[in-house]
């Protein structure tokens, strides 16, 4: 029991210390370096998720996830306009495991989506990003800072993404 108390104390102290540091210096999290695969099955390091100083959206999804597909359909409809206005680049990270990994490329092509597609078949990147459920969307500024994250999807959530992308472009 004493050990448990000691542990709790250390946890609370270290986390609160960490957050208090955050408050004063406003440090953002960045994308960790994890080896996953690109759409052709080649090893892809997530540190290569870059966009020449323009914003990035990273969206975790799966071919079996209804709200994910709804969200991606909406992002696809807006992608051309958003790209023109903000320069955004969208990476979609499939967490389909080997049951359906091979179906990701034909699925994405079948929908005629234009996103950059990555495969995270054993959820290594998902775990490293602290994602619990899909869809989970991250917005990253031109310096690689994660400025917003959002879980689940309902019609209209994309408006919030658009507002943030515009803010990032204006503040550039």
């Amino acid at each position: 029991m004493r050990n448990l108390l000691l542990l709790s104390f250390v946890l609370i102290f270290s986390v609160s210390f960490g957050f208090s540091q955050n408050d004063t210096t406003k440090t953002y999290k960045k994308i960790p370096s994890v080896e996953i695969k690109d759409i052709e099955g080649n090893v892809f390091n997530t540190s290569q998720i870059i966009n020449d100083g323009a914003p990035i959206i990273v969206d975790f999804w799966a071919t079996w996830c209804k709200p994910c597909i709804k969200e991606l359909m909406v992002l696809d409809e807006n992608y051309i306009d958003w790209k023109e206005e903000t320069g955004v680049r969208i990476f979609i990270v499939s967490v389909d495991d080997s049951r359906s990994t091979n179906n990701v490329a034909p699925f994405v092509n079948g929908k005629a989506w234009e996103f950059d597609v990555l495969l995270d078949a054993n959820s290594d990147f998902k775990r490293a990003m602290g994602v619990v459920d899909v869809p989970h969307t991250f917005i990253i500024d031109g310096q690689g800072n994660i400025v917003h994250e959002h879980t689940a999807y309902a019609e209209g959530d994309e408006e919030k993404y658009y507002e943030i992308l515009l803010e990032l472009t204006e503040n550039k």
Partner: protein
Amino acid sequence: MRKFLFFIAFCFCLSTNIFSQEGATIRGNFQTTLQTYNKDTLIGADNAPEKLLLNSYANFLYNYKNINAGVRYEGYFNTLQGYDSKNDGFGFPYRFIQYNTDNFDITVGNFYEQFGNGIVFRSYEDKYIGYDNAIDGLRVKFNPISCLHFNAIIGRQRYAFSKNENGYSNVLNKGLIRGFDSEVSLNDLFKSFADSKTSILFGFSLVSKYQKEQAQYVTLNDTTYLLDIPENVSAFSGRFNIVRQPFAISAEYAYKINDPSAENGYIYKPGNATILNLTYSIKGFGMIVALKRTDNFGFRSDRTATLSDLNINYLPDITRNHIYAFPAFYPYATQNNGEVGVASEINFNIKKGSFIGGKYGTNLRLNYSRMHNIYKQQISSDISIGQKGTNGYISDVFKFNDDVFYQDISLEIDRKISKKFKFVVVYQNLIFDYAKLRGEPEMKTVYANIAIADFTYKISNKHSIRIELEGLFSEQDMGNWAMAACEYNVSPNWFFSLSDQYNYKNPRPEYETHYYNFAFGYKINSTRLQLSYGRQREGVVCIGGVCRSMPATNGFMFTLTSSF
């Protein structure tokens, strides 16, 4: 337990000291599910002596430059019904430190890993089905050049929680696992291939388990024999992936030496598994054909383990993973002891602006899958198929048994009509061999037709309503089902939903009843909470070859998930 706590305390002290340095981050998540249980004899729901049960998890991940460290707390007070009660307990079953550079990565502690398609080795977690077979040990990854990847692992598997003299801890299983994987990209290896339009990858894996022999006896012709059980069992696999747009072909073949186990009835036949995928895709059209054959390929770190315990490998189910409620009533589960089948899917986008495609285009998804038992023949007339202590049976790769385990034909149409209105309609025809797939010999094979309509109407920028109607029509099992659900969303924070599933024309009419459910939820950024009340039908959730039986329940459920 004490060692665990000191380890964690050490990690966090470390983080406290260096967190202020630029670039250090802590991230993680928290999730908890609490459920109350009311007795409901009509649907077969039982109450819980504790009145309420709770599963919870919290992950903390620390990163500073090339160092990652992490820990997960898990608490089951007590385990929710339908999850393995061996989990009752709490503690830190997952903790690791990792150091990585561009071409070198070393992890000590717990880790998850997959070689190829996972058919010889996959360690993973899925909290939804309550599955976690993390390895506790050592992993070294080495890329001498960018196109060449080596990966070596050694350790023991996690096996739920259990009590020991020091309190609660995760029990590490008896079997030791050693593995090696390599993968090479020919395009990067040979200069002459560098600009080729064809991308070629090859991979090879070797996995071996060690478990001390346990006495197993077999009686033949009134004589009892002691079986000679191998303590070391190896499996290996080779794979390739060739892409030349718009075509791609990938395959993996795996072989395992004799591995008598409780799962295969202690037969000595070596096992094998094959997966082949062919795809063709261009903008607006994608097609996949997958073939799979499994013959005696269960591979576990404990030869006495069954169900979803202690799998070393993962044999992916190739049938479609349905998400709507009724198509998910009868999910297929990989048959480790033998199955052969095909699955194909076509995704097609009818262009926007065309007569059929409409103003916004229309998406079609057509799926066909069929799984059979493999062909098995007696070794000799005096040895029955699968007889303990023998080679079990002879199987011809090019023949298959007439038993259809499962067949699924489905068509899904997804269309946006206007800026405000869109719909999805689905039709599915299903054959499900209940007796063999669920191990209940008295049950008849289910033949079912399923129809679904899912409408979404966007009332304004932030308000939307979704109506889902489903029907399942079958003369077997529980008969027919109808469902109506309504969901109201206020973006980005609120949602409310009401649903009812009604069972009718049940061969046992006394069980015909309503399964109502009410839920509301609130989400902000990466935090989501949901409260629901209602009845949940008894069922099975399968992900790959791993299934969880969900008991019927009646009560409140509260879930909270948050990432930070």
